[in-house]
């Protein structure tokens, strides 16, 4: 028979040493459960259907909201006639720019605020009015019955045209801003080069489209508002809503226990959040407002298009001498970081003394951008990785070798050392695991035999801008009188496995089994402050905080045991759920028998996230390798296999780690091959493919099932006390560039513009022949 002790605690493996209060814990030496393949702690809920996502919330008396959006890319609203809509069956409220309760300012950015229903609609999909009705069908009936007269204005949907156009989207011209960086002297660098290559690249605009739609359920209890929102950060939504509605933070409770994907598009409150709250207040009913799929294509963010030029110089031995980069991107209709971080890889990834970058962000009449998984990076990687291969070819060097030749010693972008860097290992060990040389040779051999099917092998590598996380974060761990544990944190689990990793950290530190840990998270009413989950910072931010909270629990238990045993705290240590004296092992008490714990019922430990190391840069690294087959008659590309190496410090859960890697590669395949926003340039200016039928996400048929994740595990002792760095973004950065390089290897054709598909590839075949 198992005892209770067996159920809760793992015996025979020492619990990590407990540092005295105020002292940093030592890095874990050997881990018991961290790094194993552990299925998710909330997996049952997710596969059984018991997980209640925000879009699943049903409240008594709940009604449904819908938003009327401007169908033109640029127009002034002249008149909104709601007389018919208001009288329709089931309709409870209609709000427009004329409604006093909607007279609020919406912060599009730090500087730019507009009315919530602003008459000047600068993009297709801007909000014009909203309805609440008994059923979603009735809400949409009423939306369609609202008559709006628009004064349609001339639009600009092409970012290069917008730079020179007479038409101004905002006063003061269409430039949002220009950012430059330079170090060294690029002209001297080019003069010192043995070979110089220059090329233009473009990556198309990509839309997030997580499977759970954007939206929320809003409910008022008098002056207090509760929101169930599909979000990456409940505290961020709370502060956004409180600001717009002029409410104290304490009166806005945001709950987001589960959420169905975001990739950067749900970091903040949406206009839809405010609209749902207004409709709920006006009708005195809970309102569910989730966007339609089409609206998510228009109004809730994108990865902006990037028009890039890159000129690079290299010596015969592969040493880079100069990089000169320009990019024109598009924030959309409001300032939204249209070129954010797009030059970071140029500045930081490969060693180069002479670098110049210039990024120009432009307004166009399209939905504002939002951060999208590794903002800026896949775009630059698309250019830089293809350029590295072009340089290698020019000097007769292997693509892997040229990258290894240029692994930097420090973070050049920040001019300070990395805490740790596994870039070299990612490239070298990845090449080995993939069988790079053999595969390259075999492909070349195959292609020499003629035939329409050509084979190619390509690669790319990357660094991600951040990935070390940082303060603030607060976590509370409660240990109940039977030794079981409750973990309380504000962070959202956006699908990356945050809850699971945190359970493992608590389990590792306390010696408890993860199954007996109950997790409460992502609720501003009941859980602790956390920043939104994004930027590959959740694990390195929350994991050390959880560890600190667990240590605080142990310190408290040790104090109780010292009083109970009449011993010194410094002489006591844990053995599973026993606390015993190192001097006299007969002096021993089980935590369940601690009289103070019995009396109190709970021990609580509070953990705070400490500061990051000073003057160092914490970054994760990755490399990816792939093999493709190109049908030169049809232009079809089949990806045969992919391999990804990632150095993200310590591997926390091998199972979710691998899942991230495969997911990132899949998304990268979409970015490179299937996805692009088509705006009706020169005609209506509207988006032509605002649905999953016309805008293709990769399906199971478009990605290889032969995908391998090879972790390069290098616990980073300086990054934080768990040694873990971020993973979520580096996994998708080098994918598209690696595919382009493989296609080039197969066909000798440089696909400088995304997407690589039969249409674009056939055009290139024709150009080559003609």
């Amino acid at each position: 028979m198992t005892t209770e002790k067996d159920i809760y605690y793992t015996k025979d493996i020492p619990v990590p040493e407990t540092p005295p209060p105020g002292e940093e814990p030592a890095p874990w030496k050997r881990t018991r459960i961290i790094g194993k393949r552990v299925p998710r702690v909330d997996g049952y809920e997710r596969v059984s259907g018991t997980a209640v996502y925000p879009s699943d919330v049903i409240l008594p008396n709940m009604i449904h909201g819908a938003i009327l959006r401007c169908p033109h890319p640029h127009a002034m609203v002249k008149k909104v006639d709601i007389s018919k809509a208001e009288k329709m069956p089931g309709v409870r409220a209609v709000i427009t720019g004329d409604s006093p309760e909607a007279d609020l300012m919406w912060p599009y950015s730090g500087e730019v605020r507009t009315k919530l229903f602003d008459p000047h609609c600068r993009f297709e999909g801007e909000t014009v009015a909203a309805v609440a009705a008994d059923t979603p069908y009735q809400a949409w009936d009423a939306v369609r019955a609202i008559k709006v007269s628009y004064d349609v204005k001339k639009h600009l949907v092409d970012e290069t045209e917008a730079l020179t156009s007479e038409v101004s989207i905002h006063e003061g011209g269409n430039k949002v801003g220009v950012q430059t960086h330079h170090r060294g002297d690029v002209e001297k660098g080019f003069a010192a080069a043995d070979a110089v290559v220059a090329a233009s690249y473009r990556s198309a605009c990509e839309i997030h489209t997580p499977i759970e739609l954007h939206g929320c359920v809003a409910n008022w209890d008098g002056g207090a508002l509760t929101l169930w929102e599909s979000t990456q950060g409940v505290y961020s939504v709370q502060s956004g809503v409180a600001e717009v509605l002029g409410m104290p933070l304490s009166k806005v409770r945001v709950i987001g226990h589960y959420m169905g994907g975001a990739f950067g598009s749900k970091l903040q409150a949406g206009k839809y959040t405010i609209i749902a709250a207004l409709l709920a207040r006006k009708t005195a009913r809970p309102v569910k407002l989730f966007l339609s799929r089409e609206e998510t294509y228009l109004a809730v963010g994108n990865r902006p298009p990037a028009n890039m030029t890159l000129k690079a110089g290299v010596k015969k031995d592969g040493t880079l001498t100069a990089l000169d980069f320009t990019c024109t991107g598009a924030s959309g209709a409001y300032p939204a970081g249209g070129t954010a971080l797009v030059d970071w890889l140029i500045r930081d990834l490969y060693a180069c003394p002479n670098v110049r970058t210039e990024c120009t962000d432009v307004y166009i009449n399209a939905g504002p951008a939002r951060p999208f998984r590794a903002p800026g990076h896949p775009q630059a990687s698309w250019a830089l990785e293809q350029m590295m291969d072009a340089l290698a070819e020019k000097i007769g060097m292997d693509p892997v070798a040229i990258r290894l030749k240029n692994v930097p010693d420090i973070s050049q972008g920040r001019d300070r050392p990395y805490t740790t860097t596994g870039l070299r290992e990612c490239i070298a060990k990845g090449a080995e695991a993939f069988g790079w040389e053999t595969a390259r040779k075999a492909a070349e051999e195959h292609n020499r035999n003629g035939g329409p099917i050509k084979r190619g092998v390509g690669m790319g590598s990357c660094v991600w801008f951040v990935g070390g996380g940082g303060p603030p974060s607060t976590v509370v761990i409660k240990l109940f009188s039977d030794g079981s544990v409750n973990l309380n944190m504000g962070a959202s689990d956006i699908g990356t496995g945050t809850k699971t990793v945190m359970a493992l950290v608590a389990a590792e530190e306390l010696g408890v089994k993860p199954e007996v840990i109950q997790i409460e998270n992502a609720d501003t009413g009941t859980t602790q402050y956390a920043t939104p989950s994004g930027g590959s910072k959740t694990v390195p931010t929350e994991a050390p905080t959880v560890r600190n909270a667990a240590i605080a629990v142990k310190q408290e238990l040790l104090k109780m045991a010292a009083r109970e045993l009449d011993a010194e705290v410094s002489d006591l240590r844990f053995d599973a759920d026993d606390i015993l004296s190192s001097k006299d092992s007969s002096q021993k008490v089980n935590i369940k028998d601690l009289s103070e714990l019995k009396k109190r019922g709970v021990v609580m430990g509070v953990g705070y996230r400490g500061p990051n190391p000073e003057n160092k840069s914490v970054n994760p690294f990755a490399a990816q390798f792939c093999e493709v087959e190109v049908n030169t008659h049809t232009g079809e590309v089949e990806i045969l296999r992919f391999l990804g190496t990632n150095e993200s410090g310590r591997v926390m859960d091998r199972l979710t780690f691998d899942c991230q890697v495969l997911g990132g590669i899949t998304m990268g395949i979409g970015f490179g091959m299937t996805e692009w926003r088509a705006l009706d340039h020169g005609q209506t200016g509207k988006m032509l493919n605002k649905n999953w039928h016309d805008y293709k996400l990769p399906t199971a048929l478009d990605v290889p099932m032969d995908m391998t994740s090879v972790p390069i595990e290098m616990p980073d002792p300086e990054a934080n006390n768990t040694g873990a760095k971020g993973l979520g973004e580096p996994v998708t950065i080098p994918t598209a560039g690696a595919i382009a390089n493989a296609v080039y290897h197969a066909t000798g054709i440089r696909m400088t513009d995304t997407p690589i598909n039969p249409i674009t590839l056939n055009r290139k075949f024709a150009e080559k022949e003609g």
Partner: protein
Amino acid sequence: MKHDPKASHCQCGGKISRRGFITALGVGAAGVAASGAMTARTATAKETPMIPSGETARIDLTVNDRTHTLLVEPRWTLLHVLRESLGMTGTKAGCERGECGACTVLIDDIPRYACLTLAVEAQGRRIVTLEGLMEGEKLGPVQEAFLEEDAFQCGYCTPGQIVAAEGLLRADPNPSSETITRAMSGNLCRCGTYPHIHNAIQSAAGKRR
């Protein structure tokens, strides 16, 4: 490509005319008879009268071996009725226009998009949702395999994937790798967990044997 500006706000199933409705209804003509208003009115060629909003028909819907008697508007999709009327939110809504598979249910053992199926059309059929794959509190074999293989991230496409996989395995207990990929290609996963889903289905096939 010309776009109707009004259509840009159309939620699938939100604007069903009588003619469109009957076409969509297909073989489920019993649904028409159940709605008095439907049979009483005749559409002319020029005009396609709308069924008034709020006018409901009585239907019997058999979901997971339980028959529910419900009043539904004829235009309501099975997805809407499952989620909002029956509160069975295991079936998810991703697009409501037949593009993602988040709403996949089994109808007479065949995976179908609940967002493209009218509730009236599903009368007399055997509907199985994610919840119906449970044995009490115990996970079914496909669910268990998804959990073990980490065949999901955010989990929002997952119910649809699991039900599609269940449908596949009911039709073909020993699917080839190629068959799995093809059968699952109607279910999008934006988190990109396809290879793990593939593993899970192979493992589930073994578990069911």
